């Protein structure tokens, strides 16, 4: 029976270590990528410039110069807010009152879309959301009648409001005031 030499055994363990480490790095990179990208989005230069921490911000219309988030839609007018419910709930309100499509979507720190409300779901009722952390106690919150409680799976995340604008120049007098009804403030 052929026995392996010490050198062969050494290289076997070296290659085994290489493969194991490569697999672990691969899994870690795939797992971490969306979280890192969200961190850059929430803490990066645009977030700092627009001061969107727990308050609504209104980026300009998408153009070829818009290079913060991949695949920006030129047919949507975006409004944003980086939320942090560590210290307490966040109240999100909006009343766009538009006949065309709009939506408010909430994204967790891992990039999952965990909540969305659009014009059809909201109907004519103004949006009034109380965003709380998974660990927060809801029973002690002074939630007004008609408000909706939304539990965030992460303490930080991103709010994206989309307002449809198939023809911005013709519609801006209506849709700009509509999107500026968005507020995002600590409750």
């Amino acid at each position: 029976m052929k026995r392996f030499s010490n050198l062969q055994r050494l290289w076997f363990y070296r290659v085994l270590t290489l493969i194991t480490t490569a697999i672990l790095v691969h899994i870690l990179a795939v797992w971490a990528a969306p979280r890192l990208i969200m961190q850059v989005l929430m803490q990066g230069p645009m977030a700092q410039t627009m001061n969107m921490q727990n308050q609504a911000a209104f980026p300009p219309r998408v153009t070829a110069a818009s290079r913060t988030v991949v695949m920006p839609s030129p047919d949507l007018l975006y409004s944003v807010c980086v939320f942090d419910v560590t210290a307490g709930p966040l109240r999100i309100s909006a009343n766009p009152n538009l006949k065309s499509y709009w939506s408010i979507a909430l994204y967790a720190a891992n990039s999952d879309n965990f909540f969305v409300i659009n014009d059809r779901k909201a109907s004519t009722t103004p949006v009034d959301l109380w965003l709380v952390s998974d660990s927060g106690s809801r029973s002690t919150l002074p939630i007004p009648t008609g408000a909706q409680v939304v539990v965030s799976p992460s303490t930080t995340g991103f709010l994206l409001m989309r307002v449809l604008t198939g023809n911005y120049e013709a519609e801006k007098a209506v849709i700009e005031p509509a999107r500026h009804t968005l507020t995002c403030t600590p409750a």
Partner: protein
Amino acid sequence: MRNKPGLGRWQRIGIGFALYAAAVTLGLGSAWWVLKKAPWIVQTVQVGAWKGNLLAGSQDADMYTRSTIALNALLALGRDESMYFIASEDDAGNPLRSNCSYHVEGAPPKARWWSITAYADDMFLFDAPNQHYSLNGTTARLDTDGRFVFTTGGQEQPGIHWLPTPGRRGMVLTLRLYNPEPELQAAPASLVPPSIKAVGVCV
């Protein structure tokens, strides 16, 4: 002769360092390749030249889908709210190039609103001189058969909506469907895909 044991130790350290560097490179490189170049790793549906990810924006997304979406379509919405189909090839299976012209034609999809947008291969908009980045349910003029048509490329064709795609690089077309009809949500493969045909010669 007294230097040999020391040299051996440094050799082992060097080999160990090289192996770990190779392992990290292999791990990061394979992750990048899988997320950017191997779309079959995630659950997709293909209709014509268009591919859609069924779990985009969903909390049910697996690790690979979540990462792929974060890299290529961050902040996507779930299928009940919005559906996304991306074409990186024409109907003949050739990769889309910005220096080629394409004739895109179809019927409005079964959704409340739709748009088709041209992106460069970095997933950002082309610097279109006329600021026409997309054709959508508002701007599309339908013919007597109820069909829309537009062209992409470096040169405008008279009488047809034109999406300029300057430069010589790869490109993709993204079809967005907002509030797709329930039957389309349930069966994304039932989408009647817009055709993408190359016209003329690439410049």
